[in-house]
């Protein structure tokens, strides 16, 4: 079970990656802790969404929608727990992102950095869209759909994601 194997979808061969024991859990915890820890010392770090990047990465790598959405749910609820937002705000968004990342990862080769950059940027935008939608509909908190900060955050997270994914690739079982 620790070995990588091929997932056949149509005529293409998609590789499903496995990780060392505790890698996913540790990555999850580190991402959540850093997400709440870094902005205390680096105000600009608030623009980052490390739990989202972790969700996207493991979704794309594991390529199992059920696993991906549950991973997104857990990390999203943890992120909610460490913030002042009601439980479920990031949980919903990251659940959907986890599901979509896993679904797309099962169909496309997402190992190329450019593909990862584009997918991360798209998922970040979608994630923000879901968060704003939930804030508008459920929390009655009016939020702008688009700001320059969001655009910058999208680019920064997509760029950072490419590097983080590269590091996490080192933790794969080959």
């Amino acid at each position, binding site marked *: 079970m620790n070995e990588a194997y091929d997932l056949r979808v149509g005529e293409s061969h998609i590789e499903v990656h496995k990780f060392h024991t505790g890698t996913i859990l540790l990555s999850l915890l580190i991402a959540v802790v850093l997400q709440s820890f870094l902005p205390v010392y680096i105000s600009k770090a608030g623009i980052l969404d490390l739990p989202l990047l972790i969700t996207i990465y493991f979704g794309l790598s594991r390529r*199992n*929608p*059920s696993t991906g*959405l*549950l991973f997104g*749910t857990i990390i*999203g*609820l943890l992120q909610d727990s460490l913030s002042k937002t*009601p*439980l*479920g*705000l990031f*949980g*919903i968004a990251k*659940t*959907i992102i986890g*599901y979509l990342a*896993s*679904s797309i990862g099962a169909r496309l080769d997402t190992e190329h950095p450019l593909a990862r950059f584009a997918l991360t940027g798209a998922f970040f935008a979608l994630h923000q869209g879901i968060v704003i939608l*939930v804030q508008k509909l*459920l*929390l*009655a908190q009016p939020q702008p759909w688009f700001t320059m900060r969001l655009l910058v955050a999208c680019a920064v997270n997509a760029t950072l994601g490419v590097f983080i994914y590269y590091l996490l690739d080192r933790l794969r079982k080959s």
Partner: protein
Amino acid sequence: MAGLSSRHRSLLLLLGVVLLQVLLLAVQIKRDSQGRLIRVWTVSAVSPVERSGAWGVGKIRDAWRHYFALSDTARQNEQLRRENGELKLEIMQLQGKSAEADRLAALLKFKEKQNKVPMVAARVIGSSADPNSNVIYIGQGQRDGIRKNMGVITPEGVVGKVIEAYRDTSQVLVVTDRDSGVGAMIADSRIQSPVGGSGDPLLNMKYVGNDDEVAVGARVVTSGMDRIFPKDLPVGIITQVKPGGQYKQIRVKPSANLEKLEEVIVLLTTDPVVLKQEPAPRASSSSAAPANARGNSTSQPTSAANAAKPSDKRP
């Protein structure tokens, strides 16, 4: 779940997890005006169903009550009809008693005012079996001191005279009868002339000469010359004056409501008595008199002898 593909399973799982988190959010969110969001959602989701249910139940209940469960309704309807009839009867009785109380109060007031005149109140208990004669029966007779030829009045005016007195009943000839007559005079001009019945609701004032000035609306009162009724008791109001061959044809509307007599007063004396008079209503006579006076004969007060002019119908 066994028949579902992996993709569908994960999609269902996604929907379930998202839904759970939405509910989790809803439980936490509390809107200022409406309380917790989960409560708002629940109420919003349930209330239309409840409204529809209540509407449907109401319609079914109405249909059942109005179209099926009618046996009890019919019985209730019958009972309500019976109660309605009883209530109507009771209302009529109460209205009658109220009117009777008013009349008796008027009689009592009149009797108290005329406390020096012996009189007795009597209830009308019947009328003549002959439609051509205006006769009534009263519930008092000789035992109450009533004798033949005693005058019968109401506070409004003259009614007639006792023509037969029995032990507990008396027969009264009403002034509108053809055989009846009252010694009378016109209140203002003091022209005296007997007034008699003609069989219809109006009286005839006889023996007023064409030269006498008589106005429509003038009051006619008793003259006391017949020794039955005290002087100046209201008899009626002149409603019509026409010149005749020797005498004017004068029609008088009785002051007493002779059509609806229920209680009367019998004057227990045939001696001349004097009644205290109510203030005379002059409005009608004053307004009608001048116009009528222009079209009629000149004023010439009639002597007391006029009241004694030949008449076989005098009481």
